[in-house]
């Protein structure tokens, strides 16, 4: 199969075979063409060349509905949910159960509830999708794919925003499916995960397949080398930093039903992690500090001085930055160019006018240092691959000279190499004496990069753990409430 976009050969002459009951992982750097290849299989995009055969029979292109009827279901990387419809309505979109020419809403809700339970999501199916958190949307997206009687389920980075328990639930579902002879095509940037579930691994680079190997023949260094083209010394390059004065102190932040009396402080040169289950309130806390959401109570001290932050504009003025977890809705101006998105929080000005040359330089630099794969720095962001979009948001906040930076799920959808490079940059920022708060659902990241980890549970600070005491068990225990730790 091949696929050309204006200016990009996204998929280049790829051969792929999938067998019943196997978990076939597709790996590769951002922009390698993984998502595009999947979209060719689910007939969302029309291939420029190539054919698909199912059980020996060649299949023609008729669009996504046809692919569904052939038993191909897909979980999209950029969620394909309609925010104004309810969870149940989204799950059965295009395949509504009918009764006498009308939609059978009772059955629809009933079936939706069953499917939600299967992916371990406790949600009312009548709730609007626009009220869901990113992680919840991801689970709905998965449940939606399960609603199709599929022979092949394609999952494009389903775990990018999920934490431990949800991932376990997902793996359980996957093994149920494969036991029934259903094939899984799985894209992920998380190496441990790949090795856990893969039967075979296909590595893509620049639109072409580099290799397809059985799980047994690959180990981590080899996989990285296949993807990146060279070895990576250290996935988590944490630098030695000098931890200085307290820059930001948060006291008693509360907001009805979301945050309860949350306090913490972060010092210059320190990387503080936020851990917790989905919906624990990490995002809410960061947004509250940043002034993106109002609070009912709480005080904020910046370098010892009490400050009031009611708007993000004020926070940025004071040197606080916040990188959102929801790049699509809150992060990117989708129909603007890469360059304009990168400089959005801090425009390069010269005598009252925009300095377009400097803007271009900044964007080019960011492109190179984060390896943003784009045909041009003026390319509209919506045409980039998911991981590259994420890099653009990251680049924006690296550009601002904020003293305190909140990174909410910064590695969401980023490939290994870029992750390592991003962590290196974050480390450098810390070295420069900035305070970093890193929110992540992927514990190894926090354990390796942070000086301290704050664990949240149900809107409360369940505990703050020093680096010496770091252990996965302890943090999970705090996050699930199995152990109450007095704030250190």
């Amino acid at each position, binding site marked *: 199969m091949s696929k050309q976009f204006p200016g990009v050969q996204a998929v280049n002459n790829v051969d792929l075979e999938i067998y019943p009951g196997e978990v076939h992982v597709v790996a590769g750097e951002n922009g390698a063409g993984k998502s595009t290849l999947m979209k060719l299989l689910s007939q*969302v995009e029309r291939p420029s060349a190539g054919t698909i055969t199912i059980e020996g029979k060649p299949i023609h292109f008729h669009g996504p509905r*046809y692919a569904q009827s052939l038993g191909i279901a897909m979980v999209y990387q950029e969620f394909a949910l*309609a*925010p104004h419809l309810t969870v149940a309505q*989204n799950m059965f979109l295009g395949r509504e159960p009918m009764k006498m020419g009308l*939609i059978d809403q009772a059955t629809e809700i009933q079936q939706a509830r069953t499917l939600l339970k299967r992916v371990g999501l*406790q949600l009312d199916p009548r709730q609007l999708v626009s009220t869901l958190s990113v992680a919840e949307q991801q689970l709905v997206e998965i449940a939606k794919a399960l609603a199709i009687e599929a022979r092949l389920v394609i999952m494009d980075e389903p775990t990018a925003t999920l934490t431990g328990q949800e991932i376990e639930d997902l793996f359980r579902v996957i093994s149920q499916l494969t036991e029934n002879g259903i094939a899984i095509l799985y894209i992920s940037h998380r190496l441990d995960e790949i090795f856990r579930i893969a039967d075979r691994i296909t590595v893509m680079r620049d639109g072409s397949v580099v290799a397809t190997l059985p799980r047994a023949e690959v180990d981590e260094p080899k996989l990285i080398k296949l993807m990146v083209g060279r070895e990576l010394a250290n996935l988590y390059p944490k630098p030695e930093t000098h931890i200085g004065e307290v820059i930001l102190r948060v006291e008693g932040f509360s907001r009805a039903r979301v945050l309860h009396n949350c306090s913490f402080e972060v010092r210059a040169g320190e990387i503080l992690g936020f851990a917790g289950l989905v919906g624990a309130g990490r995002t809410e806390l960061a947004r509250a500090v940043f002034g993106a959401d109002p609070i009912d109570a709480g005080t904020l001290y910046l370098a010892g001085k009490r400050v009031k932050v009611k708007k993000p504009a004020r926070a940025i003025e004071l040197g606080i930055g916040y990188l959102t977890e929801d790049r699509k809705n809150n992060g990117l101006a989708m129909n603007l160019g890469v360059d304009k998105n990168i400089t959005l929080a801090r425009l390069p000005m010269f005598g009252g006018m925009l300095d377009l040359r400097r803007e271009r330089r900044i964007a080019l630099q960011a492109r190179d240092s984060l390896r943003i794969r784009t045909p041009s720095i003026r390319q509209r962001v919506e045409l980039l691959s998911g991981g590259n979009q994420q890099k653009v948001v990251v680049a924006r906040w690296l550009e601002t000279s904020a003293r305190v930076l909140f990174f909410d799920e910064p590695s969401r959808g980023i490939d290994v190499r870029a992750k390592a490079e991003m962590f290196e940059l974050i480390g450098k920022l810390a070295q420069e004496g900035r305070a970093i708060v890193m929110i992540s659902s992927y514990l190894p990241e926090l354990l390796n990069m942070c000086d301290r980890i704050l664990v949240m549970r149900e809107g409360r600070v369940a505990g703050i753990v020093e680096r010496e005491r770091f252990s996965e068990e302890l943090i999970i225990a705090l996050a699930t409430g199995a152990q109450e730790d007095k704030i250190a």
Partner: protein
Amino acid sequence: MKDTAREAHDAEGRQSSAERGIVRRTMGVRLADAAAQLAAAGALIIVSLCLSLVSPVFLTFNNLFNIVAQTAVTAVIAIGMTFVIITAGIDLSVGSTAALGGMLGTLMMSHTGLSWPLAVVGGALIGGVIGLGNGLLITGAGLNPFIATLGMMSVARGLTYLTTNAVGVYGLPGDFGLLGQGLIDNIPIPLVILVIVAILAHLLLTRTRLGRYTYAIGSNQEAARLSGIPIGRYLIAIYVLQGLLAGFAGMIASSRVVSGQPNFGVGLELDVIAATVIGGASLFGGQGTIIGTLIGAFLIAVIRNGCVLLNINLYYQDVISGAVIWLAVYWDQFRRKKLATASQ
């Protein structure tokens, strides 16, 4: 051993708190829904109350009859516009379409001697053809709805003028007047028509595939496409529906003056869109209800009626209706927000 125990405990804790969350949110959604309907109607109710206090005529049968009969035309078209706007589209051609439907429908009566009920169907079908044109321009030629229907607004108006060289159609059977002004057992026929159209449209919007896909397309067209919905076909159906309703409304309007008027409906599109938006629809798609649209249409009509009843200086009328619309929508939003917060 300890581990499993802890996990069980964990799971339970999560479970219950999540369960609680669900109940809370559902209640919230439901309440907010009901509140939205009520709040929207609220503005209408308050304006009506004020009017009935200051003008003894307001609540008389005759006056209410007038309001209903006058609003029927706008409301019927606005019901179609609700579908269009929910898909994140717009139809600027409704005024011209109504005029064309009205002119050709009445011409059928006066020239070919068609009976009036058949002519009404004819007028509606003419509107449907125009709607089909809009649909094809949007889905086939890929024009955006604004441009497609802006052009159609101009083209349909030109065709209307051309049919009779911009002269009205007269000499229609007196019975034809029933459609827009008759009574069945003391119930205004336009009211009956409006209620039937509204109920059917409401069912269509909330209970059928067409309705569901209307919201889906407007909410996230890409998602709708990925879910395998044949977007083009549904969009065409929606613009045809809008056209049919506009043509039909054109016949109601003609019936009210028992003649075909080539200049009918100039500027009507703005009234219709306003009714829809005041009723809570979003021009960005995905949002809107039939009941809201009806409330919007009646709000506009009641304000106009009130200005006349109260003998308000003509030039102040414009100022007042503008201000009342601001207040009504502002109050509506305010109420919704408050109820949404309270129900959290």
